[in-house]
């Protein structure tokens, strides 16, 4: 029977939510959380002998230490296969799954597999390095993800031939697989063109890579003459969250006046973000949105002015498309208000 080690975060490990996201990696025997669904899917073909549970913030803040500790655990177990997640659209979890899979594959030579949503930053970072199964955005997609991942994991562990991404359900970009299409290329192209002209759905065989990069703007000359605005994806809002910005998958951003505000306090501001332990930001929101320091700098003439409004949303699970739309809108407002520079903080 194949031996598998499974990596999950503190939430799926049953340790706790964001308040426990700083726990160090631990090795447990047997399957835990989503591992039990994998175990059922494997039947007698494979067994999850061990599960590594690690806090998402611990991993994100101590990448080298976490990687070394987990590699040591996996090295000791000597599994045939390493599975991480699935992470869905949880950013830190996805990056952790990707980072640890890359390390296990490179340093221990063990086949690896993870799963996540295509917009998870971990997908962009690692999809060309090993197989990542495309999942839905949230844990609702567990039921779809587990059979796909289990099937592919067994094939990888046995060293069997892996089919094309479209057949196996992994994200394209890692391996090129040759196969014969039933129709020849010219016919497929004309069919696609006809479908397009009729306004019907069609699937391109060669999606253009998305190289959406923005060139760096030239440096500013003299900050003492500049108006600086604050923007955050850390969800800082006036106490009570007046616009009810969602704690994840935000559908809107907030614009709030800070004229005359020199310090954010626990009586006046808090975070609406559901993707990190809120206790620190709720105690002192300057820890995420540094209004106090920028007011000092304004007084001292280190900057010309702190802009009278800040823009905020919650960055966790929020679609890239929504974030881009929010920013396009408030960037125009910032321009119209004569803002010269932005400090954007993320949690």
């Amino acid at each position, binding site marked *: 029977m194949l031996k598998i080690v499974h990596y999950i975060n503190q939430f799926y490990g049953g340790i706790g939510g*964001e308040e426990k*996201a700083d726990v160090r990696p631990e090795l447990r025997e047997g399957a835990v959380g989503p591992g039990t669904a994998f175990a059922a899917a494997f039947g007698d073909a494979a067994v999850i002998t061990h599960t590594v549970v690690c806090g998402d*913030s611990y991993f*994100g*803040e101590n*990448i080298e230490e976490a990687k070394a500790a987990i590699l040591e655990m996996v090295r000791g177990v000597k599994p045939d296969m390493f599975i991480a997640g699935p992470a869905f659209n949880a*950013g*830190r979890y996805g*990056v952790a799954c990707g980072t640890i899979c890359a390390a296990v594959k490179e340093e221990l030579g063990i086949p690896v597999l993870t799963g996540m949503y295509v917009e998870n*930053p971990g997908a962009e970072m690692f999809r060309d390095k090993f197989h990542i199964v495309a999942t839905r955005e949230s844990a609702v997609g567990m039921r779809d993800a587990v059979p796909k991942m289990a099937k592919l994991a067994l094939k990888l562990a046995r060293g069997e031939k892996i089919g094309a991404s479209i057949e196996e359900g992994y994200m394209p970009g890692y391996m090129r697989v040759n196969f014969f299409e039933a129709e020849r290329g010219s016919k497929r192209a004309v069919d696609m063109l006809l479908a397009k002209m009729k306004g019907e759905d069609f699937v391109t065989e060669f999606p253009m890579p998305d190289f*959406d*990069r*923005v*060139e*760096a*703007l*030239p*440096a*500013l*000359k003299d*900050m003492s003459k*500049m108006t*600086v*605005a604050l*923007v955050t*994806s850390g969800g800082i809002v006036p106490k009570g969250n007046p616009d009810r910005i969602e704690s994840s998958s935000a559908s809107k951003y907030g614009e709030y006046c800070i004229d005359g505000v020199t310090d954010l306090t626990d009586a006046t501001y808090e975070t609406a973000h559901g993707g*990190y332990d*809120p206790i*620190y*930001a709720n*105690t*002192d929101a*300057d*820890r*995420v*949105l*540094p209004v*106090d*320091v*920028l007011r000092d*700098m304004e007084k001292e003439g*280190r*900057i010309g002015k702190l802009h009278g409004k800040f823009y905020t949303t919650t960055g966790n699970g929020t679609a890239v498309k929504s*974030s*881009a739309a*929010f*920013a*396009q809108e408030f*960037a*125009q407002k*910032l*321009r119209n208000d004569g803002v*010269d*520079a*932005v*400090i*954007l*903080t*993320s*949690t």
Partner: protein
Amino acid sequence: MVKEVERAGIPVAHICTVTPISMTVGANRIVPAIAIPHPLGNPKVSMEEEKVLRRKIVETALDALTTEVDGQTIFEVK
């Protein structure tokens, strides 16, 4: 959001803890922060010391904004 603001013609300094994510997202001027739940603070030290730490990070962000960059650059906080 970093990209859209910069695309609109306003330079951005991105302060964040997990800098690989910022690189993937496409920020050009990146300043590493302290920790995910408190990027510009450290509850283990006094409020005064914390403000000094926060000031250093914001200073680094301002320095980043006045530094020419050739592609994505991480500005370590001194």
